[in-house]
């Protein structure tokens, strides 16, 4: 009798978890859809996010019988595709899973890791449960410890991310990729061949080409797309195959090109252009970009690892052999990466300065997830560097809940007002069609 009662309680808890999780995700998806100025062709991305988070369905695509969970940007998707599996990025932004993970992980652990722990604990999220293997690059203390926790529940491979990026480190990382290749082959039962890896390179390369085109169009002045919509597109990439995502992005790019021809822009007003950097923004935790754009700013640049940085750098093959391709993957994973896991991360400053110049950024919002110490450490240096350029910076610390939204809104509003005060008064030069 007692057992039956306990089961009922568990079932009730599960139902409440599912209800809450789907409601929150649906709400943020609706807010994204309601935001004006979305280009044509957004449906596949919205549908993907809805399928994963609202319908709680699998990410698996027809051709792939296995999915491999990945964290961080250092895991090369090409290897996973070459093994006949589909990579699914499992870094989570879910508030409901976070509240479950809060009871498992230490209080000061970052919310992203707590959300992952929460999903794994409930066993209710198909994208997590369906993974044949999880690849965890050790980029911070939380990832290091969550790898241990996850290994109790599923098969896990860890990648040791070196602190530096010299030739020896790349060589060592290449060796790790060979070990990873063996594990992937064992899990999927498919051998990674020269042909399958070349095909995977082409598939990911196509998606990267479309992304570079998208970024080029996104830089256009006046704006053709809002940053929140761009983030939805980039977040959806976690649960789509590179091929499908590339094709869907191609449609969006075509739509943006039509906007240039038709002189259509997101708004006729001159909105303060903001760069978002720091801890990753993962769906459904898109409250910060939404707050920026709902309060009269525009997210013109995104330096976070779930954003443009995640797929931007293509693997450059200088040697057409199999080893050459593996070496290209290792180089791509480490050399251009401005992740704060590296002891010397000066190139992140150059990258931010580059984004500021290219996107004519007027202000930087530095997002720090509570407990994400590595990003917090770099804030001081970035603030100093941007101070020299006269670019205002604001540090926004947030957690995976909605309690701080009003406080964030006030700070973001004030920041946007500050930029507007500095901005020259608008001149209406030509009539533009806005949405």
């Amino acid at each position, binding site marked *: 009798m007692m057992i039956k009662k306990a089961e009922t309680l568990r079932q009730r808890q599960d139902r409440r978890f599912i209800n809450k999780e789907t409601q929150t995700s649906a709400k943020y998806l609706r807010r994204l859809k309601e935001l004006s100025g979305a280009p044509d062709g957004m449906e596949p991305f919205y549908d993907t996010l809805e399928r994963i988070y609202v319908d709680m369905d699998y990410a698996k695509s027809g051709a792939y019988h296995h999915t491999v969970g990945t964290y961080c940007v250092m895991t090369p998707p090409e290897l996973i595709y070459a093994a006949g599996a589909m990579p699914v990025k499992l870094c989570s932004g879910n508030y409901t899973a976070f509240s479950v993970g809060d009871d498992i992980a230490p209080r000061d652990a970052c919310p992203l890791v707590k959300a992952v722990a929460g999903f794994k604990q409930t066993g209710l999220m198909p994208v997590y449960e369906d993974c044949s293997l999880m690849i965890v690059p050790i980029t911070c203390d939380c990832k290091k410890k969550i790898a241990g926790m996850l290994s109790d529940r599923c098969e896990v491979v860890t990648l*040791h991310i070196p602190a530096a990026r010299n030739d020896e480190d790349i060589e*060592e990382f290449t060796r790790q990729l060979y070990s990873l290749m063996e594990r992937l082959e064992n899990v999927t039962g498919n051998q990674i061949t020269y042909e399958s890896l070349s095909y995977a390179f082409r598939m990911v390369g196509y998606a990267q080409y479309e992304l570079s085109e998208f970024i080029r169009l996104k830089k256009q002045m006046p704006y053709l797309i809002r940053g929140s919509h761009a983030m939805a597109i980039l977040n959806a990439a976690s649960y789509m195959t590179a091929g499908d995502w590339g094709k869907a992005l191609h449609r969006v790019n075509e739509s943006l090109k039509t906007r240039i021809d038709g002189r259509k822009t997101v708004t006729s007003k001159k909105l303060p252009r903001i760069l978002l950097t720091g801890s990753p923004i993962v769906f459904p935790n898109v409250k910060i970009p939404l707050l920026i754009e709902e309060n009269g700013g525009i997210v013109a640049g995104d330096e976070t690892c779930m954003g443009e940085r995640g797929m931007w750098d293509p693997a450059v093959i200088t040697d057409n052999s199999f080893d050459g391709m593996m070496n290209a993957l290792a180089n791509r994973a480490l050399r251009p990466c401005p992740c704060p896991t590296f*002891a010397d991360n000066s190139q992140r400053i150059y990258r931010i300065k580059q984004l500021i110049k290219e996107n004519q950024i007027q202000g930087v919002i530095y997002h720090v997830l509570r407990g994400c110490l590595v990003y*917090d*450490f*770099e804030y001081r240096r970035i603030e100093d560097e941007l101070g020299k350029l006269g670019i205002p910076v604001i540090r926004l610390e947030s957690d995976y809940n909605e309690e701080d939204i009003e406080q964030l809104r006030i700070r973001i509003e004030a920041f946007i007002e500050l930029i507007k005060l500095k901005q020259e008064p608008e001149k209406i030069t030509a009539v533009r069609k806005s949405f």
Partner: protein
Amino acid sequence: MDKRTKQDSFDKEYNDSLNKLYRENAGLTGFRWFLDTAHRWAYSRDEHDVVILGTAVPEELVMAAGAEPFWFIGGSLGSIQWSDELVPRDTDPVSRSVLGYINRPGSNYHDPLFIVPLTNDSMRKTAYILKSEGRKICLVDIPPDRNDKYAAQKYAKQMKDMCSAVSAHTGVKVTRDSIISSMKRVSMARAVLRDFLDVSRGRTDIITDSARLFVQNSYYMTDSVDEWTYHVAELTREIGYYTARSVRTGKSRPRVMLCGSPVLFPNYKIPFLIRDVGLEIAGSVDHTAMKTQMIYKRKMLRGSRDRLIETISAQWLEYDSSPSYIRNDILYDNILTAVQSREIDGAVCHILKGQIEYDFELERIESMLSEYGIPVFRLETDYQYQDVEQLRIRMEAFSEMLVQIRVRRVKRVS
């Protein structure tokens, strides 16, 4: 806070801890040398060739390259004041303290080589800060997965690189003989420390638990490892003499094991508090105490220079219980051994705010100890002294609970 006030609070913390240790152990003449060593270290402005941050680096290799290691291992609230503006709010107090010591006014640490083991995020970013300030650094990237078949190879490579960097800095070549000599020196020091801990265990009437911890910590404050070894041996002899000639006095207190974040001098509020509430520390299980297991046997002192470095690396990879690893199995195993070999009534798991690696391990440790019926007290704190009274109340309640468990056990047996 002005410069003078900061220095005053630094002085006060050191003097308070040193005075209390002296008062509690005034009868031990051999103990005074350790107090003098700590005092001298705290006010030392000497230049050093090589500075090691933390305890997770084999000092034997630094010594083999002709440098007497100088450590910054944290432990001081006073030093945190000099790093407050350099690090984020949530940084752990150990890293803050380390950075504070480096930036202490009047310190002269622009020339040395800083060896930074990347045990956690704070150390990783501390290295970035030091490099940005133009200081010479040598990173030791510890492989996080001990089960990785290449872990030993990776660790050995890091050690070889570190040797080369220290050697290039000091201008002294690392030879087979110099490594053997330093291995013997540290083995002797560790063996002597192990004897000291064995002889002094359970004799709080002769030497207090805090003093035992302090002797252990003083290794990182000495200018000469050999001198330290000699004095520990002398102190052990003195304690042995008293032990042989006196029966233990005072009432039997519940015995607790101290684990988790290492307790570092001068911030001894936890060991002082444990004594105040009527508990006894049966042993501390942290990575400073566990070095006593890394003693090189005669057969290990064979082979070429590279072979010896590999031997040292293998030993460290096996016994290092710093938070660098995905699973801190060695810490877990040592707690298990301590529980099985000693009579322990409870465990105090000390978690310094921001050191989440230890907090992640807590669940595992708790479930293991619950199998032995040992209650665990999770004590989260930082280097501030404001929470002492709050901790005292909680600790008193824990102490009372342990006494009640003892009483019940005795009743059951009788």
